[in-house]
């Protein structure tokens, strides 16, 4: 398992390749095109920020990249597998082993303690000794004293730190974050993004992050703009990354 992850991390093929992706949803009367003609390639270990106005399609794109949904048209290849070819269960397996998530609204389970929330993906991936790893991660994010607390007993920043610990728990190769600091005040947001970037570097994870926060976007290696469902990439950034 770990070997496989290590192998993929030294691989030179792109982590994520999107070709001619278009996404539509049908509403009662007509169909709404949310994303149009998106082409994108993200290499292993890269960190990419997606910025754009509210309603421009960022969350939708992120979901498609992560295989939470399948596009109406086009191809998404995640770590070598074309996700629209996979069955729902195969996609679930892929997510369990390779993908981590951080959401704007944390998405912790209210019935579970901090520790249990972090253990959840480990159990799903069938990883041995899930509790030990979960404890380590919670200590790493500074919540070693709060293991048994439920989300309601934690502040927003603390909840997001639990969510980050959970995201890294199963040792993913790629991490998707949707406005991870969107619900937090400036300083807490700063602390959380520090934590996210640090862990990302330590684990050598590929990071795809949607954010409104220019400073956080600036800390990513690459920035993509999205407007009304169309993705553009400023030249400057390409030069830097090249």
């Amino acid at each position, binding site marked *: 398992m770990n070997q496989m992850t290590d192998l993929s991390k030294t691989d030179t093929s792109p982590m994520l390749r999107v070709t001619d992706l278009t996404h539509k949803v049908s509403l009662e009367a007509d169909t709404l095109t949310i994303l149009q003609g998106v082409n994108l390639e993200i290499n292993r270990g890269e960190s990419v920020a997606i910025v754009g106005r509210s309603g421009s399609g960022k*969350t*939708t794109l992120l*979901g*498609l990249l992560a295989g*939470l*949904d*399948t596009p109406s048209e086009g191809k998404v290849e995640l770590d070598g597998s074309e996700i629209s070819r996979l069955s*729902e*269960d195969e996609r*679930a*397996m*892929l*997510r*369990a*082993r390779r*993908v981590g*998530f951080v*959401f704007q*609204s944390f*998405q912790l*389970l*209210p*019935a*579970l303690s901090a520790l*249990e929330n972090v*253990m*959840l*993906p*480990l*159990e*799903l*991936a*069938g990883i041995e000794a*899930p*509790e030990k790893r979960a404890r380590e991660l919670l200590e790493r994010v500074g919540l070693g004293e709060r293991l048994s607390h439920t989300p*309601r*007993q934690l502040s*927003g920043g603390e909840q997001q730190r639990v969510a980050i610990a*959970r995201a890294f728990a*199963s040792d993913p190769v790629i991490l998707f974050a949707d406005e991870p600091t969107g619900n937090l005040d400036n300083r807490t947001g700063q602390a959380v993004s520090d934590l996210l970037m640090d862990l990302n570097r330590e684990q050598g994870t590929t990071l795809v992050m949607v954010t409104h926060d220019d400073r956080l976007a600036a800390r990513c290696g690459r920035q993509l703009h999205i407007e009304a469902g169309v993705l553009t990439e400023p030249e400057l950034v390409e030069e830097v990354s090249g």
Partner: protein
Amino acid sequence: MAASQKLMSVSRDWRERDVRVVLVALIIAVATVATIALFASQLQRTLVSSASSFLAADRQLEAENGRPVPAGWIEEARDRGIETGQMIEFSTMVFGESGFQLVSVKAVSDEYPLRGDIEVQSRAEGTRSIVGSGPAKGEIWINPRLLRLLELDVGDTLEVGNLKLEISNLLLREPDGGFRLSSLAPRVMMHVDDVPATGVLQEGSRVEYIYLFAGAENLLNDYYQWLEPQLEPSHEWEGVRDGETFSRSLERAERFLLLGGSLAVLLAAVAVAVASRQYALSQRDTVALLKTLGLTGKGIGRLYLRRLALWGVAGIIGGLVLALPLFWLLARMLGSVLERPVDIYLDPAALAPALLTALVSLFAFAYPPVRRLRNVPAMRVLRSQPGETGREAVPDLIIAVLAIFGLVWMYAGELALVASLLGGLVLLLAVLGLVGWLMVSVLRKVRGGGNAWRLALVGLYRHRQASMAQMAVFAMTLMLAATLVLVRSSLLDDWQAQLPDDAPNHFLINIAPDTVDEVDAYWAQKGSPLDTVYPMVRGRLTELNDQPVKEAVSKDERINALNRELNLTWMEDLPDDNRVVEGEWFAAGVTEGVSVEAELAERLGLELGDRLTFTIGSEQVTEPVVSIRTVQWDSMKPNFYIAFPPDGGLTDMPATWITSFHLGASNKVALNEFSRRFPTVSVLEIDHIIERIQDIVRQVTQAIEAILALILAAALVVMAAVVSATLRDRQREGALLRTLGGQQSLLVRSTMLEFALLGFVAGILGVLAAEAAVYALQVRMFEGSFQWHWEVMLPVPLISALLLALFGRWQLRPVLSVSPMLLLRRLE
């Protein structure tokens, strides 16, 4: 304000699952309770009317001293608006062309029978018909056997004393002739006004004056209040409820219905409580928002109160809309087997429990959690607050338990029932606490993994609070449902055992000692062998421990057995259905002592060793009590208060023999030949009555099954309500699990397993608690004996596990059918 009212509108309500559950629970509660109460009231009326027909009236006053009662007594009854009628019963010789015969005469007034009807035949081979009154003056109706004995024909005359009467009908069945064995001689019926002209009644003849009364229950009771002080010991006031087989069967059915109704009330209360608590929790965000918009706690209280009231109205209307046709159907079913069906009557009083159930459910169970909504902090809008701890719900629980107690008590009116059920419930909760503690400490050790079993166990531990609450409700629901099913089967079994298809339906009375063997051989050869044949000696109990019995026993004790001649017998073996409760049955060779029936012994205050003196003809026999035994009075077999051992005190007393046996309809013709060969033997045909009882039992059984189905439906609603209480949380969890990479199949398997485990444990607890409750009920209420019901020990937990697994699967459905992306969007 307009917007907030819109937020509260009923049509919007209906779209909310929790509200629907509350409403469905209310509707089922009202429907079940109303149907049962209406049907029980109908059954009660049927019972009274059928049992009344056994007396030919609602009440009888018997004067066994050979003198009419003062005319003023009867006038008083009429003045009070009570219908009255009169009969005179005596034995005499009648004379026909070709001989004479001892008959038992029943002379009746025009009003006879006040209840029930008479079945007659106008010619020997004619058709049977039902009539509503007895013979006119100058006419006499006779038993067909007498026709053969005296070689008479319809239309001939028969002399009763000095009076010649025309035989105008054959008397086949009289309503009040049911089970009494006093009529040894063939019956004739004549008009009461003809009696003086016969001249047979002299001072001192054995004659009974019987007065019939019918009317509203309260009138009769008031009248009896008035009459009682004036009654003499030889006067006996008889009501309808006294131990006829028929009324016993229906009484038990009635009790069963009451029990069923109580359980329905309990189930409904639980469903309403669970659903409304869930509803209240789901309303917290809305309330917080309304508060930030400036609505006061009071205003919020008012809004929700109005809402509850609306639900109440909707629940009651919905419930009645369901109950009325159902009741009508059941009552029709019951009516279809009665010869004279009681009109379907919508007893308004029977609706009261249903309305009360709805109101109490709403205000004792639904209101408390909703009321607490007023205290939701507005801050909740900004930051989700810690949820309710269980502590705030404790007063609710106390209110709820008291309300349940009160409701069931009011409904069933039986402390024993309430105590049995609540005792069972408390026991259940205690065991549940223990199991919960065990579960938590064992499951704590389980660690998750990709394996569905481990995930399920971990899931149980993680949702331990919800799991325990659900387990409590499931176990309770299962207990109630299982109790009902168990009581029902034992009730039906009892009925079946009491009146099997081959139950004795004919009595042979007055068999001369020297023809017993011949009679026995006759029926054996006809293929309808006799049950045990008992000797019967008629005698009175006159002294108790050498004191006149009427002095020995306190005056207030009105004891039937003392007022009339008793049928005494001797027997070697204890009849199968009798049970010795004190002392010992006669050992072989013992010739001393008597065995006394338990109820009589209790009423006379008899103890082992007490000496009883019987007067038989001119002789006296004195024997000590050596055993006290219970008797199955409704067994349709000869039963005796007093039994002697063979060769005991009764030897050499003038005895005739009596027996009962089953005679199939196809074999009935054998009776004709029998009457010719053994003209002195009386045949008491009760096959007709038994068929009627069997029919009624069948119909009541069906009604009970229908009501049981209704209650089981209520149980399912409760379960659905409880499962869906955690629906939102579980769906959120399911969505997230999928996002984090949980495979659908794993999710499905672990959820189903988790619920199945929950259901299994709840099933075991429920069955055990049901056994405890059934034990209490069986012993206290249904006078039955208790047995373990091994046959349900495994199926109930298994069914419960399966049912819950399916519920679990069903609630995962929305989580499985759409992409995780959409799920997350919905959950935001």
